[in-house]
């Protein structure tokens, strides 16, 4: 297998996480909603995990709802807060993940006025424009991500929250990429809703969470069953929930060490990149996630470069794994004002705990090889 430099797409399950999951895969089974003893053991495990996930973002356990992943969390946040009210406006950052963007756009059919929030060339909210936008009429919900999945650019959520609340709206924060990589404080950021995903933080795929403040009126997406206080029907995915809990606990414990590890790799990587003529690093002057760097080489097509890197044994991405294979330039980079050709050349390197300095050196060697060839 090629060297894996695509940790924003997904991460391996930490062996400690798998170990915690195994008893629920091979041992005492039980539907967590059942009343008998095994069902109760499963329920206890689910509640312990809820506390662990809550702690990662300094939320209350009662604020955490389980979902099947970040996509469902984002859909639930946007559709669940707009379901039973007369349509007004919904705003979302132009660089949001497709799950937010497309969920938002789907609300147009229901009469919502859906508007993107502009960002500047670094991917940061254009604050004066945002304030004008908020003042232009009633807004129900604003969706902004804590950190961008492609560029790693970190948004000033606290500042946004103050403006959003002053306008009488709620703020949904997609923290799928930020949680576990930088401190994320649901309470201090004053977010009303927040999405999380397990498989971005060395937990299993197929499980996520939505944190919801108690004042938020939410209607469910999946009806049926009293699970998750009636807000999300379906038999609990106990093993995955337990895995997510442990992954969250480890992410919190090891937050600094992990950030330190990837930063120590990213510094020489970026240094090496800057030495390549015609390189451009996106969001370079903004605060970014410690593990992420997205760049383009002038005159090179991203898809072609990806294939060449793949042949040389490096697994990287052009951006969101979800959009792979569509051949479309990144909407994130277009939103930051880049032209289509530059955007089409984008390569994202997202580092993880298994990466080693030698891999970075080899990656740079490979890249220089293409440029000089």
């Amino acid at each position, binding site marked *: *297998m*090629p060297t894996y430099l*695509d940790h924003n797409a*997904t991460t*391996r*399950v930490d*062996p400690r996480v*798998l170990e915690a999951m195994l008893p629920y*895969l*091979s041992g005492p*089974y*039980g*539907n967590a*909603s*059942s*009343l*008998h*003893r*095994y*069902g109760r053991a499963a329920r206890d495990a689910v509640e312990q995990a809820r506390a662990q996930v809550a702690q990662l973002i300094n939320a209350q356990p009662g604020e955490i709802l389980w979902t*099947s*992943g970040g*996509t*469902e969390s*984002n*859909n639930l946040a946007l559709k669940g807060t707009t379901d039973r009210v007369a349509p007004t406006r919904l705003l979302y950052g132009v660089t949001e993940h*497709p*799950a937010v*963007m*497309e*969920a938002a756009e*789907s609300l147009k059919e229901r009469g919502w006025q859906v508007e993107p929030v502009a960002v500047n060339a670094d991917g940061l909210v254009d604050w004066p424009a945002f304030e004008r936008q908020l003042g232009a009429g009633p807004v129900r919900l604003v969706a902004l991500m804590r950190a961008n999945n492609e560029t790693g650019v970190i948004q000033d959520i606290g500042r946004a929250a103050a403006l959003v609340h002053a306008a009488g709206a709620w703020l949904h924060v997609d923290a799928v990429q930020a949680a576990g990589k930088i401190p994320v404080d649901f309470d201090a950021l004053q977010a009303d809703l927040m999405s999380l*995903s397990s*498989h971005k933080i060395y937990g*299993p*795929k*197929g499980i996520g969470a939505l944190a919801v403040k108690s004042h938020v009126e939410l209607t469910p*997406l*999946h*009806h*049926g*069953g*009293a*699970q998750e206080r009636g807000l999300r*029907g*379906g*038999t*609990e*995915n*106990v*093993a*995955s929930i337990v895995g997510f809990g442990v992954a969250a606990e480890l992410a919190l414990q090891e937050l600094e060490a992990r950030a330190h590890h990837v930063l120590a790799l990213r510094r020489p990587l970026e240094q090496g990149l800057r030495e390549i003529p015609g390189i451009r690093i996106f969001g370079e002057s903004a605060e970014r996630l410690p593990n992420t760097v997205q760049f383009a080489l002038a005159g090179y097509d991203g898809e072609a470069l*990806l294939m060449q890197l793949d042949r040389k044994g490096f*697994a990287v*991405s052009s951006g*969101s*794994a*979800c*959009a792979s294979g*569509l051949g479309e330039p990144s909407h994130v980079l277009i939103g930051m004002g880049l032209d289509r050709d530059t955007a089409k050349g984008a390569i994202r390197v997202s580092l993880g705990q298994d990466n080693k300095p030698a891999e970075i050196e080899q990656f740079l060697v490979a890249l220089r090889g293409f440029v000089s060839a």
Partner: protein
Amino acid sequence: MIYLDHAATTPLDPAVLQAMLPWLQGRFGNPASDHAWGQAARAAVERARSQVAALLGAQPEEIIWTSGATEANNLAIKGALEFRGLRGAHMVTARTEHKSVVDSVRQLESQGLRVTWLKPDAQGLITAEQVLAALTPDTALVSLMWVNNETGGINPVEALAPLLRERGILFHVDAVQAAGKLPIDLSRTPADLLSLSAHKLYGPQGIGALFVRKRPRARLSPQLHGGGHEQGMRSGTLPTHQIAGFGEACRIAGERMAEEGARLSALRDRLQQLLQAALPGLHLNGHPQSRAPGILNLSFEGVEGESLRASLGDLAVSSGSACSSATREPSYVLRALGRDDELAGASLRFSLGRGTTPAEVDQAAARVIGAVGSLRRIAGSGTAALVSPPLNAHGYAAPVWAAFSDPRHAATLPEGAIAASAGSPAGALRLRLQAELDGRRIVRAAWQAYGCPVTLAVGEWLAGWLEGRSAGELQLSAADLRAALEIGDDKAQCALLGEDAVLALERQMSLA
């Protein structure tokens, strides 16, 4: 522990776990990624898609992954009707559907969908004629489960599907309890949408699928947006390990279906015969013939449901669907079959599975026979032996459990004893106290009761408390009882019943 609750969830087959592990260990790529890590995961996902399709007689591209059957049912119903447009639309479904179907339909009903809710016959089945009679020119969708999760009854899906196809009406089938248990061949049964769940057939929790027919194409509005996974019908990163496990589970189910079905039917019949031979007053909830192997649902006359469950110890069975167990309401499916609250509440669903042995069936039968006989005797009917419930599996407070599990004063006293009764207005609880007097002093007390374990514990505790006391010493409030037995607010009525019974006894003593 004897696990006879396979209709709620099944243990993971060891072979399924083996199929999952590589994707939880080294091979962790995102199936949507283009690189080799992603390609490996994608290949596993597609292999599993073929395995699931093969179990159904479907094409792989007709399988859409979901997070489980609840999502699959939501996607089928809301997706189909939103695509068509709710305006003027009508659909037909049944009151006996799973909660995820019922609640999805109700949600659309509140938005203007017109719905015909079919009532099952006394055996819990919906007939094809009933469905056809309910159709209107505006009927856009029929949703009917193949096998009912509570009774095991088999609805006439195979007969109905071609009739609905002829009429151009979309047909959704919740096949969660049928898949892997009954042969399903969608190349011959023209249903358009069909929901599946992995954890009901020895696969992992948190993964399911919706079959969406390609020819003629069933069209859906997606319910989860973003990324365009699953042909745009269901976005979100695919959990490779769950999907690989689901595929393997379907492969195994297909291989073993015939042999396992015959074995479980025989075991189920054996359980039913053992219980019916030993206990009068049993009601079969469901159809005696048209039922899936492995599920047996019985109501027990003359016992209260919660006490029955509490008496079963570590025998894991279900009382109604696990999805609504938390609400402790009598099963709405059994109510739809015409059972009253009492009989619906005193029902047990036994669901046998791959690991169930004949010895377990015999032990389970003995446990139930002992518990029912004992509770009936405590309620004043029958002469069966009193059996101590083996284990406090439901977490009753220690003093309640001590009294409930050792009902040494549960008896009737010889003639001449003073008796007094109390009951709840609806008759759901009854408590009878008896006292044998020596002058003004109670030398012996006894009780009988019908009710929940707390009611029975109140009876037992009171009988012990009464012994040795004289008239004039019988001041006991409900609050005292609650304190002594650690009775919570949710069971306050049981303490009130005790207070009433003591007051009534005191009155009888003063008359004597």
